[in-house]
């Protein structure tokens, strides 16, 4: 009997919610549009973050340190330095380029420059040292990698340093600046995200509060005929959820069109990032976030906004 009763109650609450949505067409439309704007903000912010992340990752991947060894360095010594570098937690990848490979690459690069090739021929021997190319996990960690290279651990077996030069010290300012830009862009992105999401959710909350304010007399009548709190609140929560769902669907469709258009426009300067294919690839996740935010904002706004009128 009890289960029967609550089933009946849930059915009535949902039906009333849909009725209210349909009958107050204009209010519903306005609320859905405001919620759509909120969800679009959420959507655009996640795209913005994705673009930022990809661009930063791309920039980061371009930072590295090249260690050039003296031409007399033994390969075994170099490989042992490579090995100890690889044991450092900060280091992601170390690539060894031998003297011969360096020469090949040099020749290839200057294949059209006969004078350089002739000069090289003149020298008779390979003037290039082998190099280690080091990538750190994070740009801020290059300093400690460079420090390690300065230390005694990199001395050869006979106690003389075999490192000719480390280009970190030449690139230090650039690397530092980039590191700073990346970390502040990350922070700014987060602050902006939080701020915009809070603002747009407040707007959505206020809109729903307004629709409930319109119904305040109705709520007091419901109270006086002995309707329970959940019975009064229920249809408004359903209404909030419908607003959220409708807004989420409109948002997802809008994003579909906008990203398609943006992908064409931004293709030039975001060479490795296609916003449209990003959207399609991550559609499930994005849809989940958008629908989830819509439903949560709708339901919670209703619950919070109606509380004031339930005190009788």
């Amino acid at each position, binding site marked *: 009997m009890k289960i029967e*009763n609550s089933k009946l*109650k849930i059915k009535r609450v949902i039906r009333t919610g849909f*009725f*209210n949505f349909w009958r107050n067409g204009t209010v519903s439309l306005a609320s859905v549009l405001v919620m759509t704007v909120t969800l679009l903000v959420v959507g655009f912010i996640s795209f913005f973050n994705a673009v930022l992340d990809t661009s930063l990752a791309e920039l980061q991947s371009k930072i590295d340190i090249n260690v050039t060894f003296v031409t007399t360095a033994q390969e075994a010594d170099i490989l042992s330095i490579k090995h100890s570098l690889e044991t450092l937690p900060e280091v992601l990848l170390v690539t060894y380029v031998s003297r011969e490979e360096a020469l090949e690459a040099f020749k290839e690069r200057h294949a059209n420059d006969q004078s350089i090739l002739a000069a090289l021929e003149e020298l008779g021997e390979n003037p290039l040292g082998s190099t280690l190319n080091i990538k750190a996990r994070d740009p801020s960690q290059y300093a400690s990698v460079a420090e390690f290279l300065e230390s005694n651990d990199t001395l050869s077996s006979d106690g003389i340093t075999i490192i000719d030069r480390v280009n970190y010290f030449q690139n230090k300012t650039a690397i530092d600046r980039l590191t700073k830009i990346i970390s502040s862009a990350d922070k700014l992105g987060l602050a902006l995200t939080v701020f915009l999401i809070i603002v747009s959710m407040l707007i959505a909350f206020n809109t729903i509060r307004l629709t409930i304010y319109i119904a305040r*007399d109705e709520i007091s*009548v419901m109270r006086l005929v*002995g*309707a*329970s709190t959940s*019975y009064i609140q229920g249809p408004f929560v359903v209404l909030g959820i419908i607003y959220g769902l409708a807004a989420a669907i409109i948002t997802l469709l809008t994003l579909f069109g906008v990203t398609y258009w943006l992908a064409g426009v931004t293709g030039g300067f975001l060479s490795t990032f296609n916003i449209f294919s990003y959207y399609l690839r991550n559609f499930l996740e994005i849809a989940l976030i958008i629908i989830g935010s819509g439903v949560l904002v709708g339901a919670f706004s209703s619950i919070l906004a109606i509380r004031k009128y339930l005190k009788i």
Partner: protein
Amino acid sequence: MIVFDRVSKIYPDSSVALEEVSLTIEPNEFVSIVGPSGAGKTTLLKLFLAEDHPTEGNIFFEEVDVHTLGKKEINDFRRKVGMVFQDFRLLPDKTVYENIAFTMEAAGRTDEEIETDVPHVLELVDLLPKVWNFPKELSGGEKQRVAIARALVNDPDVIIADEPTGNLDPANTYDVVQILKKIHDMGRTVILTTHNKGIIDSLNKRVIAMERGKIVRDDKIGKYEN
């Protein structure tokens, strides 16, 4: 039985709405409460429905202090009391049928009960033809009859009508009073507040007169006196 035991209501700004009001209303009584605006009639009813708390004193309904009831019990209690207001307070987005059905749904009645009881109660107030109209399509008198039907449909023990004829013309006023009499004859307690001298004089029932928060007169068969 309804008992007000030395009930006072003093608002935070020290204005006194009720002062040591004591009165007893027996089951199946028809009581009219009269008095000028601000006499405390509506406050009395609000306190009875637990819409507001008394500053002092107790209010009992069937030997239970209504202000000691929990939330759920208050809902159950309110379903035993049918309310009719001067401004009708119908739900504008619901049809006549839905306005009445809503009260039954809130009380957890089944769909079958609703389908049989709503037309029945509308017949009682002579409004069956308007069952699918919205409140804005009804006249004042018709709206008040819907409100009475709504108050009646859950078969309450008590009907409270707070200035039900305040917004009605004489013909509609007469109709509404006749319906209230009919409800009383069906064995319910009716509490009516009004300004209308004609109604009081024609009823020949108990009249309680209030002034400045106090009961100044309580006549078994009263007339309206200025």
